[in-house]
């Protein structure tokens, strides 16, 4: 299968990486976390969410983990995802890239200092 492009890192993928920075989450929890961290501006739909997750899994920026959730028979199984070391590194470099942009924006007096 052709690899999807993660360079430049799409916004949805970046937010997913950020959502996993502190804890392992399943798909719906990732969607809620992204919604929260964007103050409701981004609500990932299933296609975008799982398309991005698949890209990140393929590139090993995240991994599927078994959290030992006690699934009762008949209940749905949930897949949890965890940020890998390379995923954390990617998120950091993307954040730094954005921070650089912000510095430029501030230097150009497009943004005021309150934001960073």
């Amino acid at each position, binding site marked *: *299968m*052709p690899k*999807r492009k993660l360079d430049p890192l799409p916004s949805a993928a970046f937010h997913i990486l950020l959502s996993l920075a502190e804890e392992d989450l399943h*798909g*719906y929890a990732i*969607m809620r976390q992204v919604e929260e961290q964007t103050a409701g501006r981004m*609500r*990932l*739909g*299933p*296609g*975008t*969410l*799982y*398309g991005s*997750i*698949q890209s990140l899994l393929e590139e090993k920026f995240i991994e599927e983990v*078994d959290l*030992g*959730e*006690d*699934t*009762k*028979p*008949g209940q*749905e*199984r*949930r*897949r949890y995802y965890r940020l890998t070391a390379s995923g954390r590194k990617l998120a950091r470099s993307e954040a730094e890239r954005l921070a650089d942009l912000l510095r430029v924006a501030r230097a150009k007096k497009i943004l005021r200092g309150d934001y960073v």
Partner: protein
Amino acid sequence: MSEKIYAFLIRLFPAEFRNTYGEESLQLFRDRSRDERGLWPGLRLWIDLLTDLAVSVPTEHRHGRPALAGASARQQLDGVPGFELLEATPPRPGTFFSAAFLSFATFAAISVLIVHGGSYPALWLRGSQDQHPNATQASNSGRSTQPSTGGGHRKLVSTGDRKIDAAAPGSGNLMLVSLTPARRLLPGNLALAQSNPAQSGQPTPQDATTAIIRAFDSHNIVMFGENHGVKQEYEWLDKLVSTPQFSDRVDDIVVEFGNSLYQKSVDLYVAGDNVPIEQVQKAWRNMIGAVGPPSPVYASFYKAVRDENLKRRGKHQMRLVLGDPYGDWDKIKDAEDLGPYVANRDQWYAQVVKDEVLSKNHRALLIMGAGHFLRRNGPGYVEREIRAAGANPYLVVFGTNSVGGYDDLDSRFDSWSRPAIVSVAGNWVGELPASSVTTGGSVPATQLKLADAADALLYIAPRDAVTQLNMTQSELEGTVYEKELNRRMMIMTGRTMGPLPGEAESPMFHYPQPQMSSSGPPALPAPPRSIRDPLPPRPPSQ
């Protein structure tokens, strides 16, 4: 309703995405629907979903070329093109309809353009005398490939077949057979056309457990046509469900030997909860499809699933889904009460698979008597129904080295490791008569070949080493359960049970007894009028 709509919309995604994330997407939809109730949140949810579909469906189709599902045929013969399998599942019927419609629309549009914009008339507007050269060629080609209809094929035409999950001799346990008339086999020329190619290949038996696990790589459903009560078969099944690679990937095991009235108790039991065994065993003791004391193999199998789930606390759990109709023997007083349940056993089993397995995108092992699953003149009812619902099943049936009459044992099986599963396509195993192989020779050979009846054969042991586990006379004698079983047998057959085996283990296949009486066995009572009734509403699960 809205979930069904969204489940339908998920079909817009490529198959690989659907298979991997379809259920997750649906789960996310359920979660959001649960949390975002009301007019505005509901509207916002649908706007989000439709926007997401509009963006992500094209993206997934652009990126999501499916991985190869099968190796390509050997090719490179000087420019002869080869083909690779890109999809693991066959296209849905709707796909063919859409493809046909689009093809027709495209063809019509081009023809209209030609008619109105150029000097060439549309192909279908040409006179019959002015045939397109390719049409003649195709027609000739068709004639040349038409199978011969000479008298030879009449040898393969059979008058019918019979269901084979009738009472095993000596088992004391009556498994109900279909009341529908026996079906005819494939017409001779069709049977020839299907069985002729590649008979010369050698079978490659695999370790049975490994083969089942591998089957789930490319199939979401594995159907196992069992022989009821066989000790060696259930020893293997118990081992199968205890194998981590199986319990990791299989969500449900749908069994014939469980009355679905008791699904709730069985769910709790296999989840490891403390449920009185008297409540749980109603599932296999109160079956509609089997009147008579159940073999102990079933209780062991339920326990094996429970034990494995307990061992895997916190990990993926398996569910036992009960596929026997939900008739309540406490309320069944006569044959009229029983009729609708008996008549709808296959229908209910298929419905359960659709509701509890396929709608959740689960993987499942289906276990039912081989007579229900064997393909005779095409797939059986259950297989047809689940295929229509999108399943991609793989059918394995139980069998032995019995390849003709009772005395015809095939020594070619002797060198195989056991238990083994072997594909029956394109080798001598597929040429064997299905009725003999699956019944230990107690049912005479018919023209139905294994290759036409199933995908694979489970060879568990030589015929004479196969035994059944029985509930013995001493276990049952004088109990309330014995009285109840006799009552049920009277309703079903008009007579009480015969004596049970004295031994807990006995040979599975006995030499067919010659008919001593010219009058034959006593006739069963006439079918009740209610045999044509649909199933009554399902009561709450117990």
